[in-house]
């Protein structure tokens, strides 16, 4: 009770613009507690973010000093850089296929692990492993081997009689990107865990009611599970999409952007321009463009969300 009044007091005194000193004194402890985080935020997020904005307006050869050029980098990117458009195209292609595939496999497995069966916990853990490994260089090297012309994937296809001749999946201009998409789909662990948590939240009573009404398993999934899972789906969609727009390690290790730049992901192109060629200013501009673009895409998805995301608490 006392605290509540105190808080009200604070608000009141703030409203009146009175007693700033007293207010500050009261809140100093709070600020002291968040100070470590605040320092970290300023030093490792705010400062790099703002300096990259500054660098994006300069010509900055990585080993020299930056010189101000205004919007030149941005103008060049939009008017005179076919690689920029190419890398955007490649990245969008990747995201459009990889995100749904990952979400579908995550949801499928979450449904499978939903009911407690023998060893369920073991399988849950086991299927999470690819997520931990997936972003690593080691797994990218394995992937490279798997889809090379001498690799196990060809062995399988030939053994099954699907193909006569081995082909190099990572060397083929049309298929190389699919090796990356499959790798992405395989790393379904973290959305799977979140889906599992979401599934547990759905009241059993709804299923019982659906069953009494004569709904089959498939109908139950589409009429009960899916609608009630949409908030979780929405969350996973945003998170995974942002992650995939930034994909780097896999594309850098497995294909280096090749063959013929068909897997030139945006982050790989940014890295090539900014670090390999040393155009830090240009690279910073590229980084800001993808930031803005990602924000726009996210906002659009948010705007559509009230059309398809169903919150249980609504109307209560």
């Amino acid at each position, binding site marked *: 009770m006392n605290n509540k009044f105190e808080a009200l007091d604070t608000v009141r005194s703030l409203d009146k613009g009175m007693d700033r000193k007293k207010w500050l004194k009261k809140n100093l402890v709070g600020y002291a507690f968040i100070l470590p985080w605040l320092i970290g935020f300023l030093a490792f997020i705010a400062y790099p973010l703002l300096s990259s904005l500054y660098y994006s307006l300069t010509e900055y050869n990585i*080993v020299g000093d930056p010189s101000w050029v205004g919007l030149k980098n941005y103008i060049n990117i939009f008017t005179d850089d076919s690689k920029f458009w190419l890398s955007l195209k490649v990245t969008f292609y990747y995201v459009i296929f990889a995100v749904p595939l990952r979400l579908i496999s995550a949801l499928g497995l979450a449904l499978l692990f939903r009911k407690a069966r023998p060893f369920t916990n073991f399988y849950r853990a086991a299927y999470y492993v690819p997520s931990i490994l997936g972003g690593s260089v080691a797994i990218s090297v394995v992937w*490279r081997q798997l889809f090379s*012309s001498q690799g196990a994937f060809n062995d399988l296809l030939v053994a099954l009689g699907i193909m006569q001749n081995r082909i*190099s999946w990572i*060397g083929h201009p049309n298929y190389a990107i699919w090796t990356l998409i499959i790798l992405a789909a395989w790393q379904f662990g973290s959305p799977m865990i979140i889906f599992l948590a979401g599934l547990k939240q759905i009241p059993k009573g709804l299923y019982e009611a659906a069953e009494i009404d004569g709904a089959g398993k498939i109908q139950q999934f589409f009429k009960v599970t899916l609608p009630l899972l949409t908030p979780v789906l929405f969350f996973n969609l945003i998170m995974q999409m942002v992650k995939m727009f930034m994909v780097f390690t896999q594309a850098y290790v497995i294909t280096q952007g090749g063959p013929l*730049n068909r897997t030139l992901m945006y982050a790989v192109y940014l890295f090539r321009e900014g*670090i390999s*060629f*040393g155009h830090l200013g240009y690279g910073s501009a590229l980084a800001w463009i993808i930031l803005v673009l990602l924000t726009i895409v996210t906002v659009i998805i948010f705007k559509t969300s009230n059309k398809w995301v169903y919150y249980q608490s609504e109307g209560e």
Partner: protein
Amino acid sequence: MFSKRNFSLVLILTLVLSLSLSVAALAQDDQVTLRFSWWGSQSRHEKTLRVIEMFEEKYPNIKIQPEYTGWSGYWDKMNAQAAGDNLPDIIQHVRKFMSGYVQNEQLLDLSPYIEDGSIDTTNIDSSYLEMGKIYGKQMGLATGVNAPAGYYDKELFDAAGIDYPSADDTWQDRAEMFKKIHEELGILGASSPTAQQDGTGFFVWLRQHGASFYNEDGTALGYDDDQLFVDFMKYDLDLIKSGAVQNAMQRQESARAVEEDLVTNGKAATATNYWSNQLAAISTGAGKLLHPFLYPKAADQTQEGRFMKPAMLLTVSKNTEHPAEVMKFLNFWFNDVEAGKVIGTDRGVPTNTKVVSALKENANQYDKVVFDFVDQASKNSGTALPPQPPKDQEVIAAYEEAYWQVIYEMISPEEGAKQFREAANKILAD
């Protein structure tokens, strides 16, 4: 929460702690740590670490902190560290990237330290010192010299009944050699007819035809006739069609580690895209000696196009806080015979005559071959390559892009030549 007594206790503790820390720092003050970065294969790492050990034994107050990786990623790391003014004290460098670092004042001029005797160069030939000069200043010291080299598997040539590669072969001789091996043994003649992607083969080809990759001051391409590019690419395409070399897709996925080159497991009879200092590494991969060979001649060549270069150089960051200790290390590296014996020819055939004669005395099987090969190369080499412009990496990237598009047959060699010329001119004009 804190009583007054507690507080003063904490205060005292803190004071004592920080004092003891600074005392510890003081005690270590005459201990100097230098960072030394290099790229290389496993055998180089081991050799270098042993030399560092020897140095630290001799100078216990200097500690060398090694930072090593493979070639891929090394320059990304260096560029990032240069941007952060955090370059290692001693940097293994290549001549082709030095001009950019020099222009941006990242490297220390070594001339004063050579003049005052900190680095003893009495046993290093001036032509080798020349290899470390950029714009007339001694910005690095060559660790050794190298020649572009291919490697071949003698047993496979014997099995196919074909003559070994020789220094007098022409490009056509080599093409026939690769095709014959493919016909006789069903394996590849080579992964690719030359080192294509990094342009080394093209450099040689251009020089043989009286041209060069860059013009003298590095402001434009050094050849006017696109037919040179076209012929060079057609040569490769013809070999791809015959099946004697890898096609584009196979090249795209081929291993990038020298120890895993196809020649090391008998899937190809030769490898064409290496350097003389890689003999030990590639032979270790193969489990037997692979023999080095030179680039071919052009049948109609107007001048000797083959060349040698400093294998790599040791350079010093301009920001080093301990130049005196760095020079001690360099002096040790370039003059200590025992250290030279450990390093061997892994970083090229050494430049110090005393080291070389000591090496020749106890040369192992590999090094003997390398000495002979470099000797042969020096007799078949034209002028040294001029320092590449700082934008070299971008131009090479443009070259690679045209190269890939041509060998994937997305565009014709003629279109490739035009595309590369336009891209290169645009990069160099900026």
